[in-house]
């Protein structure tokens, strides 16, 4: 029973509670659209996708609810999901000569392109975590706004500024949204997958 197995056990306790947490949230925010996103790796850290309208109230609820007390936003990450053509086998039910059979069909599907910010929440008072919540923008082009969670957890201040600097997500309600790493009149967002660095005129070795 080595470390990673034990870690999975501990997070598994949270696993069941993720449904409970989701139900708890929908209990107090009935019209919030929540979605549990599975996580393929054995790390057993599924995440909860929030919608923009209720994001900040749900975040404040997660922090202040006595049973949850997620008072520590440990890590805020920006992720760029550009458009991809995905070849998928879809199980299609077809009626073939009277018998309903499941057929596998390969079709390529364009995934929707969006930018995402992922929050890993822990509770210092109750000691459990991580609860992973995700916020997704509408698209990667003109509408890249997300509600900022810095008013709820101040630890997101610099990390959200870094996501704005490197990915270009506009965090609404952030007290001081400026570039943090690149110089001020830099215009690109270098961590996006489709960023082409300027060729520095240097002969490649």
């Amino acid at each position: 029973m080595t470390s990673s197995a034990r870690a999975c056990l501990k997070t598994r306790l949270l696993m069941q509670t993720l449904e409970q947490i989701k139900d708890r949230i929908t209990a107090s925010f009935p019209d919030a659209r929540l979605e549990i996103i599975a996580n393929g790796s054995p790390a057993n850290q599924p995440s909860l996708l929030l919608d923009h309208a209720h994001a900040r109230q749900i975040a404040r609820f997660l922090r202040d609810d006595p049973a949850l007390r997620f008072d520590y936003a440990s890590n805020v990450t920006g992720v760029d999901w550009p458009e991809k053509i995905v070849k998928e086998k879809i199980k299609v039910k077809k009626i073939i000569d009277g018998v309903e059979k499941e057929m596998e069909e390969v079709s390529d599907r364009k995934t929707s392109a969006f930018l995402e910010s992922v929050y890993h929440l822990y509770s210092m008072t109750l000691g459990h975590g991580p609860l992973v919540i995700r916020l997704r923008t509408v698209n990667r082009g003109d509408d890249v706004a997300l509600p900022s969670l810095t008013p709820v957890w101040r630890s997101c201040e610099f990390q959200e500024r870094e996501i704005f600097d490197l990915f270009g997500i506009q965090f609404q309600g952030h007290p001081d949204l400026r570039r943090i790493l690149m110089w001020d009149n830099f215009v690109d967002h270098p961590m996006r997958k489709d960023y082409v660095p300027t060729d520095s005129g240097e002969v490649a070795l």
Partner: protein
Amino acid sequence: MDPEPQIDLSKQGVVLTTVEGLYNWGRKNSVWPLQFGLACCAIEMIAASMARFDMARFGAEVFRPSPRQADLMIVSGTVTKKMAPQVVRLFNQMPEPKYVIAMGACAICGGPFRDGYNVLQGIDLYLPVDVYIPGCPPRPEALLEGLMNLQQKIASQRLTGPARPRHLRQSAPGEFTVPQFGSHDLVGPRLPKDQTPDANS
């Protein structure tokens, strides 16, 4: 001056030297580096100045925080594009004669972070470098050896004649252009390739 009589005489306590020899001997044994650490190589530079590797044996343990009192800039660590204007401005604000040691792979050519979008691929794009010390980070002994190379270079500099160093030639530029921040990358002329720090040494 052929060295044999010099050595015999110095055995009897008589020192024969030239003005140039005296001038360079004084300068090479009191090289004051600028307190200027960028990244991991700076920790190795501090370790070199501590008790175990003891840079004081070479007279170079006095790290001057202000560029006005320093003669050597050890560029120890990755020079990013956001830091490059400051590095060049600091070098310009140092009084002549001044030297640059590019310590570590990052200062030489960008090192492991060469294809980073914010990393300058070597400080010799903007500054004339006198000694390159490879390594990531170079061991303190390697830094000391680089310092000895610099001392040999200082000792061999001539005061007069066409081969005298940059700071003694009125024609050589006294200042290096500071790069500016563009909207995509650094803008501004770079050091012309043919301008090696010192034509002769």
